[in-house]
């Protein structure tokens, strides 16, 4: 495995090989990046300090002839949480990057003026990005992909430049390494974009086997995942809405009577214009959607965005959610943290802790989607009250005293996605123990508890073994790097299938025990990183509301 090291301060490059032992034991992606971050970051370094590493990493599965091979990983210390942060994005950037002959990039330092990295078969080059600074995500990608024909660009928008603590790195216009502020760390380094174009062969130990798995996966999803292909993640609104676990009004409730107005049928029948897909994906779960009311076209919104800009703000205007998704992509921000921080502000306003004096004259009331859109704009531009929204819910609430902290719905500083853990209680433990904060993609306990109904979702008791197994499995996915929708829909979240894919990609001859250890190793190194940064058991918890405010109706239990 080859890594490109970029010192932005010194304007220097170095190519290094990953020691074979590390490649075998950590595989790549999230696990390997966690080890590098642990070893190379100084303990307790500020996330915006130039010494904080920003690591782009692929895995041995990225860009191969298997299926769902499009993803790449970005790892750093999060400016939102102070914990380790790994974020992932699909699209086409990852496979193109791997064709350059590299498997990862480690950035350190800070450029004196805005730059972007151009990496091709001919090698790396830092180029002036002064003309791009200030441009939004769509403009930046369009300019760079026109300037560098056939290249793919991963970029930041104004939110990343202005250090919004949950700024994203965006590629293919609408694909996001979204959570935790990887884009803000990139902005702090004056790095506007990473543009890649390669034509080399991607190494793969058993190409024929990988091609065969692509055919099998295609047949499986065509037979079993018809609804997911049609609706994408928007279909989840129907499940969480009916089950009383859709976050509503900043988690004051989990029952949103209007959920169908923001659900899959309304979305697909009235707004979706076409399906989209990442490289080597037979699922096509991406949805291009249009709002005639706002004149915006976007890719998404995904379920989490529908829930957090929808029910969690008491908002049933699907057009406004589509537009909010468009704005977040344009400015380059995580939709979940942006929406949740706005929901926190709405509740602070409701409780009288905030007033129009604080918000710059914007009155906040549940369901007022015009105020919501105004705050999204202010946050993306980092103007007025948007400066505080751009800090995330923990810091927003802290600015208004201890009482306000009760209304900041996050774990370790990262805001919650669209699953109320009071009605999916394995998720309570999953959110609390997640290394990056309240994340639904470190362990999908909602699948056995809610989607499949094979575990009692109304108790947290007895969930630890399943959760540990999922933490190992999902760390393995992120180390390969494999799309989790593909892993679930085509490979049944099965260890045996992962063993087959790992060996086909690497040729390392792993056993089942070996790959379980890879997952455990990555997870444990992330834990060690967080402990070193000062996080403790006290951070493995939930906001008090989720322990004290009941929301699940008892009648549902029967």
């Amino acid at each position, binding site marked *: 495995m080859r890594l490109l090291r970029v010192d932005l301060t010194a304007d220097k490059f170095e190519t290094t090989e990953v020691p074979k032992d590390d490649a075998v*034991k950590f595989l790549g992606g999230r696990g390997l990046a966690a*080890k590098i971050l*642990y*070893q190379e970051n100084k303990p307790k370094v500020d996330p915006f300090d130039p010494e904080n590493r920003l690591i782009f990493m692929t895995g041995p599965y990225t860009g191969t002839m298997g299926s769902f091979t499009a993803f790449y990983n970005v790892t750093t210390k999060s400016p939102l949480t102070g914990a380790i942060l790994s974020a992932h994005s699909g699209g086409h950037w990852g496979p193109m990057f791997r064709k350059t002959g590299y498997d990862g990039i480690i950035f350190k330092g800070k450029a004196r003026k805005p730059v972007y990295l151009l990496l091709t078969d001919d090698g790396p080059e830092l180029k002036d990005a002064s003309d791009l600074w200030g441009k939004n995500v769509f403009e930046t990608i369009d300019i760079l992909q026109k300037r560098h024909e056939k290249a793919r660009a991963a970029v930041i928008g104004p939110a990343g430049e202005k250090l919004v603590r949950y700024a994203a790195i965006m590629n293919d216009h609408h694909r996001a390494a979204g959570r935790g502020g990887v884009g803000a760390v990139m902005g702090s380094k004056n790095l506007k974009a990473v543009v890649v174009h390669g034509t080399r062969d991607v190494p793969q130990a058993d190409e024929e086997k990988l091609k065969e798995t692509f055919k099998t996966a295609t047949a499986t999803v065509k037979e079993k995942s018809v609804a997911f292909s049609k609706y994408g993640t928007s279909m989840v609104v129907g499940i969480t809405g009916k089950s009383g676990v859709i976050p509503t009004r900043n988690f004051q409730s989990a029952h949103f009577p209007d959920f169908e107005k923001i659900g899959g049928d309304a979305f697909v029948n009235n707004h979706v214009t076409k399906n989209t897909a990442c490289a080597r994906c037979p699922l096509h779960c991406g949805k291009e959607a249009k709002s005639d009311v706002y004149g915006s076209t976007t890719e998404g919104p995904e379920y989490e965005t529908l829930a957090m800009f929808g029910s969690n703000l008491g908002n049933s205007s699907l057009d406004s959610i589509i537009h909010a998704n468009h704005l977040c992509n344009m400015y380059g921000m995580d939709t979940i943290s942006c929406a949740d921080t706005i929901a926190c502000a709405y509740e602070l306003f409701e409780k009288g802790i905030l007033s129009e004096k604080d918000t710059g004259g914007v009155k906040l009331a549940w369901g007022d989607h015009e105020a919501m859109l105004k705050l999204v704009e202010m946050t993306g531009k980092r103007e007025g009250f948007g400066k505080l929204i751009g800090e995330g819910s923990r810091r927003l609430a802290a600015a208004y005293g201890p009482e306000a902290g009760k209304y900041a719905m996050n774990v370790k500083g990262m805001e919650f996605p669209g699953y109320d*853990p*009071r009605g999916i*209680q394995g998720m*309570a*433990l999953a959110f*609390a*123990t997640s290394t990056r904060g309240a994340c639904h993609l470190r362990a999908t306990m909602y699948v056995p508890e809610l989607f499949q109904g094979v575990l009692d979702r109304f*108790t*947290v*008791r*007895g*969930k*630890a*073994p399943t*959760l*540990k197994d999922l933490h190992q499995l999902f760390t393995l996915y992120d180390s390969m790097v494999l799309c989790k929708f593909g892993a679930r829909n085509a490979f049944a979240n099965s260890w045996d299938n992962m063993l087959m894919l790992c060996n086909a990609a690497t040729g390392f001859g792993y056993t089942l025990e070996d790959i379980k*250890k890879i997952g*455990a*190793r990555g997870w*444990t*190194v992330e*834990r*060690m990183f967080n*402990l070193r940064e000062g996080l*403790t*058991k006290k951070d*493995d918890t*939930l906001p008090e509301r*989720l*322990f004290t405010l009941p929301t699940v109706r008892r009648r549902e239990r029967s």
Partner: protein
Amino acid sequence: VNKADFEKELEEYYKLWGWSAEGVPSREALDALEIRL
């Protein structure tokens, strides 16, 4: 979420990983995974 149940299950989760009651990986747990940082 019942807080007592949550705390108990959190302890069980730590135990399964071979971590202390404070959630710190033991030397044995690190050695078993051959983690040398």
